[in-house]
């Protein structure tokens, strides 16, 4: 069997892909498997600083002309794959990270190489020689297992794999390849091209404390107050889909199947119903506290601590309390009568 980890894009994204794919492979594709790493980028990747994966036996480096023009990356993948024929039981697997760019490469590469693809894979197992891939479907409500019958098998993993090591592959010299024909499908396409770094979800995904607001937060002003609370507590702010679609928060702050997947020590959720799609974004948190005015809100099913009530009032009280405590420096012993109400 053989597996090929395909890394694409720019730094630091590639580094993130290495970590998540290593974590995935350690769980589901470890052991006696011949492993290659293909690194495709428009940047000059400094392999001396880059640490790939423990068991990798070959590293192939290819440079493309433009960052993030999928057609160029696909031409490279096709060229590197070549005409090798593998028997079904020898694989190979082409593995891609969870980001939208590389996930799309998985699907298109499978089509070009006459294989099969699956996006958002969170588990892989063999049962009686059958390869089964597990992923979330129905917007996170259900878990499906698919038997994948063709090869190559191009898998893009689900977000949320972490702690993959970056151990240096010892004694493996990266080989540089050039792919002659990078002309993309439609002649003069694209006509102009610009690529800028934007804010990404990195702060959010690395945070130890996440505050998540849902539609029940009610207004932009209340979101601002929650941001203040986040600042006081040293946490990062995220939100549900309705909140970002209404531009109360930036799109990079979206939590859930279509946004960031966080795994902080603590996650505070204010006014989110706890839909399946949102849950995917926060369920890896070690501890979850939720405030919702509806006692039967699904969010309470997976919260460690629940507060039934108006989240705006709660936020405002908590903010006042935290401010007072931080001013005095000591713990305040709560005295009901001293609080003007």
């Amino acid at each position: 069997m053989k597996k090929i980890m395909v890394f694409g894009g720019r730094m630091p994204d590639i580094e993130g892909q290495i970590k998540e794919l290593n974590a995935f492979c350690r769980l589901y594709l470890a052991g006696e498997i011949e492993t290659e790493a293909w690194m495709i980028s428009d940047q000059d990747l400094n392999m001396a600083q880059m640490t790939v994966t423990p068991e990798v036996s070959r590293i192939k480096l290819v440079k493309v002309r433009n960052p993030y023009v999928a057609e160029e990356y696909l031409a490279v993948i096709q060229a590197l794959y070549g005409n090798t024929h593998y028997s079904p039981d020898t694989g190979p697997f082409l593995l891609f990270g969870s980001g939208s760019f590389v996930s799309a490469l998985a699907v298109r590469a499978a089509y070009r190489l006459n294989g099969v693809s699956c996006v958002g894979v969170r588990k892989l197992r063999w049962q009686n020689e059958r390869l089964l891939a597990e992923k979330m479907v129905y917007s996170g409500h259900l878990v499906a297992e698919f038997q994948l019958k063709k090869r190559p098998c191009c898998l893009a993993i689900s977000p949320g794999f972490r702690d993959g090591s970056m151990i240096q592959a010892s004694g493996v010299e990266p080989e540089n390849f050039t792919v002659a024909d990078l002309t993309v499908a439609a002649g003069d396409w694209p006509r102009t091209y610009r690529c800028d770094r934007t804010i990404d979800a990195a702060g959010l995904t690395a945070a130890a404390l996440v505050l998540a607001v849902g539609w029940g937060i009610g207004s932009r002003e209340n979101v601002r107050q929650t941001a203040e609370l986040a600042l006081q507590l040293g946490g990062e702010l995220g939100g549900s889909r309705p909140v970002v679609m209404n531009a109360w928060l930036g799109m990079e702050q979206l939590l859930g199947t279509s946004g960031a997947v966080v795994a902080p020590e603590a996650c505070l959720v204010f006014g989110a119903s706890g839909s399946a799609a949102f849950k995917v974004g926060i369920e890896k948190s070690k501890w979850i506290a939720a405030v919702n005015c509806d006692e039967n809100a699904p969010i309470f099913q997976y919260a460690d601590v629940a507060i039934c009530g108006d989240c705006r009032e709660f936020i405002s009280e908590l903010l006042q309390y935290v401010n007072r405590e931080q001013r005095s420096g000591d713990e305040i012993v709560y005295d009901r009568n001293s609080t003007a109400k």
Partner: protein
Amino acid sequence: MKVIVCFKEAPDLERMAPADWETDAALKPDTRFVPTVLNVYDESALEMALRLRDAARGREKTTELIALTVDSVSPPRMLKNLLALQYDRVVKIESSLDLRFHALAVAKLLAAFIKTQDDAPVIFCGVRSNEGDNGKTPLLLAEMLGIPCITPVIDATLAAPDESLDVTVDIDGWRVGQRVRAPVVLAVGNVAGSSLRIPTLKDKMRVKGREPEMILPAGIDVEEIAAVMAREEELVSLKTERQKRDTAFVRGQDMAETAAIFYNQYLKKRAGI
């Protein structure tokens, strides 16, 4: 310019009761009792195409808008709404196959229709759809048509003076802007403020008597598609995942007390506060 928007309607899953998620022998939960809604990304795509058409108005060239779906279930209400919003054609390719997880088959049916069009189109899709969450159809469609695909698109505007489009994409922390021309597939991602406009009564009156087109897959062997589907992959299980935490309710006499208890007994020990 010809713009084709591929859209799908699916059951509103947030309205499902927990018991409805039990699946039957065909590995299908019973979604008959919840209303059907537009896939969220497709809603943005349909609105984006309308905005392109609005922007192109007053220029010499016309924009033809086609809304296209492969479906067996959806009620005619949404299709009629699209006519009222002045989609020139609303086409439904009827299929009785279980296509929930078969983006390849959906893409084949869409591609077959698109190939019958004379002009090179701009094709809008969403990045992902219920119920399958496949995230594949626009990519496979582009491969089948041999044209580029850009994903996930967050903005597309008309670039004067020709028919190029300025397309913006958000890729994992990079914002990419590019000028492209038809034919191209644009897969629309999360776009703030892109709810589909609602037709007025007047809009609806104007298209009274017009019906969406229902067509059968042209020149395609549906049996063959089913056979290809079965050779590639197969759904073997579909389940709910229940992992309930032990929930402690915090209740003070008023919100101020609740906040204080919460802070001192729970929050303080976490996250290094």
